[in-house]
């Protein structure tokens, strides 16, 4: 395959810890990166991880799959991946680097920017062929177009901003020698503890999210939210008031100090729609709200709102959806 000089775009791969498959955010990044050139996927992880991901990466457009494998990569926090990417940037002078916008992804992007003397843009929702990126700021109030002005542009892509589209490519495996510096080995990851196992899709990846707020009134009542989410195959979220009241764990909080979600459908149940909550959900494609207060600000952004008691509306809606789905 002919290679245009400088048109290679590196995409850092994130894998699902459970089964080693490629995460949806990475498929989105591969799709978005194609606007900028020929895509190469970078898999950095323990021995053997790249092989399991190669086929899927090729299907989504990776001409090359750089395999940077060493047990040390997962043993230390963030820094090893930034070092591997910096080494590759020096080797192949890519047109850009695209990274899924997870907490780790943003941190890798920042460190990589310093290592390579580049600028970076976080949480972009779109990248144009000329490198201009779109960002939504201030709780969704404004749209900004920005450009990196020095070095190799580095972007982190907000989840669910782009629809992953297959574009089969060669997916040629290229082994990368990993030689980490001492500075990359300062923060040891001693243990990875999973506290809640769930069969629901992950909040930031889900195409449907059902969130409950203070109006849900208790932890037990969150079963109503979970049932509605399950009837739709969606994820469960919560407002900060619901989290602070102990109704649902913090890792499900949507908003400024929680997760940013951008699903096809967001259903807010018993949530008033404070600006800090909107910050995490305002870019959802379709927004539905159930609230007994007709003046609740959430209705300002709802495509469909039901003014009513959530304890009446939610269980009935769940039944109807179940019935439709058979």
């Amino acid at each position, binding site marked *: 395959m002919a290679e245009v000089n400088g048109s290679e775009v590196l995409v850092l791969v994130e894998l699902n810890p459970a089964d080693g498959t490629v995460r949806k955010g990475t498929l989105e990044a591969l799709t978005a990166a194609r606007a900028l050139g020929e895509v190469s996927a970078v898999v950095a992880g323990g021995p053997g991880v790249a092989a399991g991901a190669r086929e899927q990466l090729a299907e989504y457009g990776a001409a090359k799959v750089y395999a940077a494998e060493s047990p040390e990569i997962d043993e230390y*926090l*963030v820094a090893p991946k930034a070092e591997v990417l910096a080494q590759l940037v020096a080797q192949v002078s890519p047109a850009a680097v695209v990274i899924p916008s997870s907490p780790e992804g*943003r*941190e890798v*992007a*920042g*460190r990589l920017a*310093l290592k390579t003397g580049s*600028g*970076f843009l*976080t949480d972009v929702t779109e990248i144009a062929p000329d490198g*201009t990126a779109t960002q*939504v700021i*201030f*709780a969704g*109030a*404004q749209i*900004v*177009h920005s*450009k*990196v*002005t020095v*070095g190799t542009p580095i972007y982190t892509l907000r989840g669910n901003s782009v629809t992953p589209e297959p574009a089969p490519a060669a997916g040629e495996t290229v082994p990368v020698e990993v030689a980490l510096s001492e*500075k990359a080995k*300062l*923060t*040891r*990851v001693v243990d*990875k*503890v999973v*506290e809640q196992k769930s069969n629901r899709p992950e909040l*930031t990846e889900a195409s449907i999210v059902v969130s409950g707020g203070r109006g849900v009134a208790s932890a037990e009542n969150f079963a109503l939210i979970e049932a509605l989410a399950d009837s*739709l195959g969606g994820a469960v979220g919560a407002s900060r008031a619901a989290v602070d009241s102990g109704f649902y*764990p913090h*890792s499900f909080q949507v908003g*400024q*100090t929680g997760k940013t979600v951008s699903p096809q*459908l967001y259903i807010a149940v018993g949530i008033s729609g*404070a*600006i*800090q909550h909107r*910050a995490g959900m305002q870019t959802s494609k*379709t927004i*539905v709200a*159930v609230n007994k207060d*007709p003046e609740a600000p959430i*209705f300002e*952004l709802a*495509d*469909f*709102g*039901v003014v*009513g008691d959530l304890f*009446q*509306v939610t269980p*009935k*809606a769940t*039944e*109807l959806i179940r019935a*439709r789905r058979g």
Partner: protein
Amino acid sequence: MNIVVLVKQVPDSGTQRSLDPSDNTVARAAADNVINEIDEYAIEEALQVKEAQGGEVTILTVGPASATDAIRKALSMGADRAVHVQDDAIHGSCAIQTSGVLAAALQQLEYDLVLMGATSTDGQVAVMPALLAERLGIPQLSGAQKLTVEGSTVKVERQTDGGFWALEAPLPAIVSTWDTINEPRYPSFKGIMAAKKKPVETKSLADLGVDPSSVGLATATSAVVDVTGRPPKGEGVKVTDEGDGAEKLVGFLAEQKLV
């Protein structure tokens, strides 16, 4: 144990915020400015470590003159002293440039631990801990829901989806905190009075030995091309439940092919 806490002043996230149309930087002058809320958790954590182990808590802020309000709040919670880096040249700096100023200021301080918020509400970049760790060559333990210091080792539970990662590193180190880590104290009357007498040192870029041309809008590593208000959403449908709210809701979802 010497602890430096990084505190940022931000426009109140509960109000209408905007970019200054003249240069597309965050409009701070007209805004209602407050301490970045998560930074209060970092301050609280620093005070708890100090109370357990002794030492001194220094607040470090890079920001305009008005940021003294945030500094006073931190001091009235119980921090001992503050360093305020203030220089007109810094206006419009990107995260990378700001990290350079913060790192230079940190290099003039003695610290075992640098504490900071996990994210700021204006930029929401959540990348400052990584940038500073990279610049200073010290460990990064970001996103903490729990912190323990044992001798010269720092241990952190880094909050993740559905759980946490247990992290460990030698001091000196950088730790960023989430709002799950503690419950920040309210400043007492005594604390507020005492804060007025605590030392606040103002430093310029020259004091830090930072080249003014390395900061500010002109040399920022990214540039805003244009800003537009988000197109207002078309008026949505609002129905009042009269026993049929659920039917109508599901009808809407079906119409949109969402179910």
